[in-house]
């Protein structure tokens, strides 16, 4: 094929290549995406050609464009269509190289943050539904991968770019099949700890409803259960920005040790120093309570153990509770709590009944 002998300037002068890179015609986009994957030996020329076109066409840098695009997508409530596929993503071969700036020979260092010694149980479960769509023009299909943890289950896994996600119970994350190629975007409902591999050309963005947390190479915890009204984002290392994309506010920059509380009802973000133990203990199997109300305790236990709680004879005035349990059984936790807060309990198959004693 003539393209295999193409020089950088040949690509730049080629109308179909330009149509692909400037996203004009879907047929060109499809052709070139496939061709580029099949010809890794031309990656240098392709990348250099793209840089030259960026320069001449006065293009907005890709990551900025993606940020703008995300805002529009959330404005129209853009839900991606999921594909039915028994295949897992490991079976698909995806060619992807980090884009180097050839002008300055800047190398992008991808560093994998291996933080924990604890080996979590890898629990993957692919959730996909295929919806057919009929249109005159064949528009680009996007398929998503979703990882869901039910109550009582935690998991950890690596993403294609080397980033590590530790997912708490009753939590789910969703990301495109092409994650890592042009963008690194994750949609989270629940709680997860992220250790992000460095890639300054593709910011790592975690979306939790109206908030977008952007990181370049760092580790942070996000607690954002859709059912809850308070979200918490805590930065452990590196740097992230948090932004309310729905309100299009200025992003807040976090430094290690600093976190952000987001009140969903009032829609405001406040900056707070956080207690690392309190925020991260879930990862190594510790349930941590600090000045927790009974409701907070029960909610956490429900998620952690996957049980339903029923409470009888609650006291009018309840004291706050501080304590921690390292890899304890539900039985032991309830025993301690019951002793401290003065209640009896009964554990059944899916339910725990609590009776306060006055």
């Amino acid at each position, binding site marked *: 094929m003539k393209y295999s002998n193409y*020089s*950088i*300037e*040949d690509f*730049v*002068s080629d*109308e179909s290549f*330009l149509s692909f890179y*400037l*996203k*004009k*015609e*879907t047929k060109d986009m499809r052709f070139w995406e496939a061709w580029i994957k099949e010809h890794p030996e031309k990656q240098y020329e392709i990348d*250099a050609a793209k840089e*030259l*076109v960026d*320069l*001449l*066409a*006065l*293009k*907005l840098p890709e990551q900025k*464009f993606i940020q*703008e*695009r995300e*805002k*529009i*997508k959330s*404005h*129209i409530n*853009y839900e991606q269509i999921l594909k039915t596929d028994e295949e897992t993503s490991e079976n698909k071969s995806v060619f992807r190289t980090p884009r180097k700036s*050839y*002008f*300055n*020979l800047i190398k992008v260092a991808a560093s994998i943050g291996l933080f924990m010694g604890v080996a979590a149980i890898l629990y993957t479960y692919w959730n996909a539904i295929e919806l057919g*769509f009929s*249109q*005159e*023009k064949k*528009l*680009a299909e996007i398929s998503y991968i979703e990882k869901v943890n039910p109550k009582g289950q935690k998991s950890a896994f690596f993403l294609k770019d080397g980033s590590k996600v530790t997912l708490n119970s009753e939590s789910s994350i969703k990301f495109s099949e092409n994650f890592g190629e042009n963008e690194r975007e994750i949609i989270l409902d629940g709680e997860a700890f992220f250790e992000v591999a460095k890639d300054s050309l593709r910011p790592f963005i975690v979306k939790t409803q109206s908030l977008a947390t952007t990181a370049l190479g760092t580790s942070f915890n996000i607690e954002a259960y859709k059912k809850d009204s308070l979200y918490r984002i805590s930065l452990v290392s590196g740097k992230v920005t948090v932004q309310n994309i729905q309100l*299009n506010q200025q992003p807040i920059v976090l430094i290690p040790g600093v976190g952000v509380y987001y009140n969903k009802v009032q829609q405001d973000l406040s900056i707070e120093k956080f207690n690392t133990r309190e925020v991260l203990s879930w990862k190594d199997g510790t349930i941590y309570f600090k000045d927790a109300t009974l409701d907070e305790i029960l909610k956490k236990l429900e998620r952690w153990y996957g049980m339903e709680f029923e409470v009888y004879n609650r006291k009018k005035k309840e004291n706050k509770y501080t304590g921690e349990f390292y890899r304890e059984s539900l039985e032991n936790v309830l025993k301690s709590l019951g002793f401290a807060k003065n209640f009896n309990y009964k554990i059944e198959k899916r339910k725990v009944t609590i009776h306060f004693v006055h």
Partner: protein
Amino acid sequence: MDSSVWNLLRASNKKAFINIYDAYYSDLYRYGLKLSKDCIQQIFMELWDKRSKLPEVSQVKSYLLKYLKRKIFKELSSKKKYVQDLTISEHLDEASYEDLLITKQQSHEIHNRLQRAISQLSARQMQIIMLKFYEGMSYDEIAEITHLQHRTVYNQLHRAVKELRKSMFIKDPFNLLCVSILVIIFSVF
């Protein structure tokens, strides 16, 4: 991109909407550069909100550009800014396009290399480059405007891009060193 996608948008097709966004964003962006970003967002949000009331359009790009011009103008006049910015002109001439290319570079080094590279080009080449990458025209369209043959336009563009490529890309320093050493050795003889 043809008007069938536009009609899909009018029929509330979200994928079509995003496709239009992707296809025309860069055209809109370079019209006003920094000024455009917020205006472009507003335009697309309005476009979506009013999608069922949109007219039939044959040239999506010019429709969007006109929309953007109006928006930017409103934006600037409401802020009492004098519309002096050279980026807001309807059409750039080659000199302003050159200025834009060079001033957009943050790195001093690239700045210089680019300036040097551009100075090597002929006026004709500069014009063709601008028509292709700034105005986004096809070879046929450029041929019409410049009264040149399609083939000639292609060759001129290709030659110009090659010159730019040579000036812009530093080869591997190690390679460069080897080559320089060889050149020195050879020149001694």
